[in-house]
């Protein structure tokens, strides 16, 4: 649904003044129809530039963007002004913003009607559609209120209703929940998820909060310094050994008790989660296993368990038991070799 190839954005590339800053460095992104795709990264990783390049609010320096099979970069023209075709294409892409960006001079209903005014729809049709959408986001009773009278969560609901007014197939969400408290964040994410399911809406969201990815994303990508360093569906990521995103999505803590111990992260998915593997392991090899940390959670609608266990002896002594665990269809990460990586991922999740 959304595909970018070699997307590059360099600020100051026009050679006017200041040094050049590379915000995007050859980003290839592929968002499938009907999925919720999360791009996560720290401030300055290039997430905002990425989402702004998708509807060409920022002109990419190089690379292409296509949405619903239409090459937007080809419509861009040369100047900073958007031509008619690009504007039409933009009207088919909804966007919600971190700071809501509602017009304070208009009522809630008039804000939702704005995209339809731009499309030249009749007054009757506009108000019918606006009221229908306000009902969908649960704000039917606040149609006549001004944005200043609403709470943050309500404002974002209006922002979402507005983004959906022109019946887009794609919704871009630029840190939509970052200005909201945790409770409101949950309800907004739930709303996005519902809209994704009910309307078949493809959602591309950027965020710096791992919880957002965890609660609603089907797929995710991790961005660092303008590049996508990891991407895939959530279950693929969880099944990738040493995946930073997986570790960050689903962290388990615990340190080894001594130097001659082996610490292993075990990830269970689906079927494997129901097998009593740890007691089998203990009985078969007659070893004592300490559990350092464990958690079970639902990530992207998938039941996942992760456990950090400690085996006596060095890694060399434990090759056989670890092999046994692998045979059970579990994903095994031996901690130590990738200590630096886990630490990084832990940082990202906080």
């Amino acid at each position: 649904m959304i595909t970018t190839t070699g997307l590059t954005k360099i600020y100051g590339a026009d050679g006017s003044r200041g040094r050049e800053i590379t915000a995007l460095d050859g980003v290839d992104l592929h968002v499938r129809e009907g999925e919720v795709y999360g791009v996560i990264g720290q401030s300055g990783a290039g997430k905002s530039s990425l989402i702004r390049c998708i509807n060409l609010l920022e002109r990419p320096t190089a690379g292409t963007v296509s949405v619903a099979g239409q090459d937007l970069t080809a419509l861009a023209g040369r100047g900073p002004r958007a031509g008619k075709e690009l504007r039409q294409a933009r009207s088919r892409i909804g966007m919600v913003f971190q700071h809501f960006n509602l017009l304070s001079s208009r009522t809630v209903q008039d804000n939702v009607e704005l995209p339809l005014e731009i499309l030249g729809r009749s007054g009757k049709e506009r108000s019918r559609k606006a009221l229908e959408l306000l009902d969908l986001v649960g704000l039917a009773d606040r149609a006549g209120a001004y944005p200043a009278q609403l709470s943050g969560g309500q404002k974002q609901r209006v922002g979402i209703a507005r983004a959906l007014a022109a019946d887009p197939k794609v919704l871009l969400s630029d840190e939509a929940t970052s200005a909201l408290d945790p409770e409101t964040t949950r309800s907004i994410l739930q709303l996005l998820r519902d809209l994704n399911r009910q309307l078949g809406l493809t959602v591309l969201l950027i965020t710096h909060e791992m919880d957002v990815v965890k609660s609603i994303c089907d797929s995710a990508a991790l961005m660092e310094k303008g590049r996508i360093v990891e991407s895939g569906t959530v279950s693929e990521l969880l099944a990738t050994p040493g995946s930073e995103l997986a570790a960050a999505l689903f962290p388990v803590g615990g340190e080894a008790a001594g130097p001659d111990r082996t610490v292993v992260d075990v990830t269970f998915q689906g079927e494997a989660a129901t097998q009593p593997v740890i007691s089998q392991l203990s009985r078969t090899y007659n070893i004592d296993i300490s559990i350092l940390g464990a958690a079970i959670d639902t990530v992207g609608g998938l039941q996942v368990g992760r456990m950090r266990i400690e085996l006596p002896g060095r890694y060399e002594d434990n090759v056989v038991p670890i092999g046994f665990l692998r045979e059970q269809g579990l994903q095994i990460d031996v901690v130590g070799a990738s200590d630096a990586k886990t630490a990084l991922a832990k940082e990202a999740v906080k």
Partner: protein
Amino acid sequence: MTWSEMQPLLSQACWDTLYMVGWSTLIAVVGGLPLGILLVLTDRGHLLQNVVANKVIGQVVNITRSMPFIILMVALMTFTRWITGTTIGREAAIVPLAIGAIPFFARLVETAVREVDGGLVEAVQAMGGNTWTIVRKVLVPEALPSLIASTTTTIVALIGYSAMAGTVGAGGLGDIAIRYGYQRFETELMWITVGILAVVISLIQFAGDFAARSLYNRGGRSGRAPKLRLLKAKEPASADIGKVA
């Protein structure tokens, strides 16, 4: 001078002032609003970025504004005659008043429009709106409270300028105060004119403030601007938590 002598003088003067200030305000708003918006739009990084046009408009505005009104009035005499067919009287005074007020108002419009949150412009761009839509649906309505305040300031400034219009025989309250009050030592009449001017200006200021404030506080809550700033201040904090930890 008795009151019965003063009364017709004063009422004529009031009418003259109102006439001159009214028309020149109207022209200043019609001319200054687009000019001020253009000053913002043509600036670097804005929708109609055009450095040359921006510099030219900016310079014209600066030159006109730097000229003392009495000199502007004399300098524009040929132009005034071409427009109104005369260089004396109320109509003749309106031309320099309006031309002096256009750049003044344009600068105020520029400041007001710059205050509009860039995110709103971005939101309308993302909906597929063109520049004209953005001007009509975002910049002007969102800046409206400030624009009204700017208009009030312009009216008050024009009342001040109009005192000098007496030099071209346009009449008005300021003219009465100078000719009768100062030059003929009718101190009483001068104080009455000053009083009337004070009352008129207070009323205009009050009305303007009231209109601007009731628009600004739409929705019964004051100070939406500080609230937005609070939210923005939160953003880097939450983004930095990861680094701190």
